[in-house]
């Protein structure tokens, strides 16, 4: 301190407090900010405002790639567009075939459950957002989307694409929100195997094409090709949204747990549009309440 301090004080004496003192003040302020940022609370409100302040810069950073996409779209040929229309038509036809019997099935399901009327969809409302910025590295898998608090987006809201679960809202700003993808190494998602009903947790690996299921005991029934859906536990995602497909199951007799890998269904790096969803709270497929979580426990489907 003294070594640094003397020179500056001598040369710039009389121009306010020394650099050392000012640095000390800012350092103190930083430490206080860091402390309260970790604790959460009132600083979240400040952060909400800061997000708005930084939003123009985020748009500016994204503008080169946005301009490039716009150019690309403007100069697509007739043939490419025709091909795309054909592809979309075929997609639509396939989807129509899948949903053709849905009304009948839902009625049947309602009868089996002894319900008088058919249940509405668990997804009550949706909002389309456009991806502004994409951060895909082994350490962080985050998206920045142009919908925020002023559009009704809230923290820990489920975000999906047409193919499956994408992630959840991590941080909300007034006009934008940051989404943590299910493949982020800090993300964990409660899932269920559709075929066998086994419930477990899917962890992100930091690679956009891979999820890890490290907590499945050896004797549980999970096979390659199984579809994993959200289990409705964890209080973020409603039950039954498709998540991933199991690609690899390794059962090492020396280990108590099986090593299972799955590939997420939502095409994260291609989709420019994402869906924020609001669930119907009184629906049976809505996220489980804490009381329900206390009772349920997974049952091994196969015993050796």
């Amino acid at each position: 301190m003294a070594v640094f301090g003397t020179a500056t004080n001598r040369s710039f004496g009389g121009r306010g407090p020394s650099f050392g003192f000012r640095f000390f003040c800012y350092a103190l302020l930083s430490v206080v900010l860091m402390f309260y940022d970790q604790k959460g609370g009132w600083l979240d409100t400040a952060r909400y405002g800061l997000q708005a302040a930084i939003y123009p810069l985020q748009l500016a950073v994204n503008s080169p790639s946005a301009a490039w996409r716009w150019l690309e779209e403007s100069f697509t040929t007739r043939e490419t567009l025709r091909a795309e229309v054909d592809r979309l038509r075929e997609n639509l036809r396939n989807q129509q075939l899948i949903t053709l019997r849905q009304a009948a099935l839902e009625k049947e399901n309602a009868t089996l459950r002894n319900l008088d009327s058919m249940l509405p969809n668990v997804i009550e409302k949706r909002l389309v957002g456009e991806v502004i910025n994409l951060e895909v590295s082994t350490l962080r898998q985050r998206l920045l989307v142009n919908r925020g608090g002023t559009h009704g987006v809230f923290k820990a809201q489920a975000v999906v694409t047409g193919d499956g679960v994408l992630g959840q809202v991590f941080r909300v700003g007034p006009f934008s929100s940051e989404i943590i993808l299910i493949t982020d190494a800090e993300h964990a998602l409660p899932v269920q195997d559709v075929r066998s009903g086994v419930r477990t947790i899917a962890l992100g690996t930091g690679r956009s094409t891979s999820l890890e299921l490290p907590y499945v005991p050896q004797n549980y029934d999970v096979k390659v090709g199984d579809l994993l859906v959200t289990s409705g536990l964890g209080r973020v995602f409603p039950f039954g949204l498709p998540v991933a497909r199991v690609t690899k199951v390794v059962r090492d007799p020396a280990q108590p747990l099986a090593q299972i890998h799955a590939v997420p269904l939502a095409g994260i790096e291609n989709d420019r549009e994402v869906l924020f969803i609001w669930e119907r709270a009184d629906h049976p497929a809505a996220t489980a309440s804490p009381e329900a979580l206390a009772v349920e426990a997974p049952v091994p489907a196969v015993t050796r």
Partner: protein
Amino acid sequence: MMNFARREPRWAVTFTLLLALIAQVVPLPDWMPDIRPSFIALVIIYWSIYAPHAGGIFAPWLAGLALDVFKGEVLAQNALAIALVAYIAMSLHQRLRNQTLVQQSLFVFAVLTLNEFVVWGIEGWSGHSMASSWRWLQPMIGAMLWPFIALLVGRTHTRS
């Protein structure tokens, strides 16, 4: 108070810091973000040496805070690290002005390493391990880029 009316290049500071912030966060493919040097710290070092009163400690601190908000990291972790870099550079600015750019890059390497170390420590404390071990290559790359950055930033103002 302001008895000598030398104009401080405040606009140049703002402009270059904004550019540095953009360079710092612009999306890059795959492995490149891991070794991207801290452009903000480099620009801050320049201004701390050649115009220590233009931005003071406040500009570096604010730029660091903007970076934190932008990257969604613990608030003020980069702000603290960059303010520290600025403080050290300002304290030694008279000695550093007499060195050539290549000589200065040794100093740049040292403070960038310190910057990285502070951020690494705070990440460890807060439990978010955000960067790979490639990060320790960043100060080296930053030091190699220093002469070019200094020449570029130097064109935005006339040295007194």
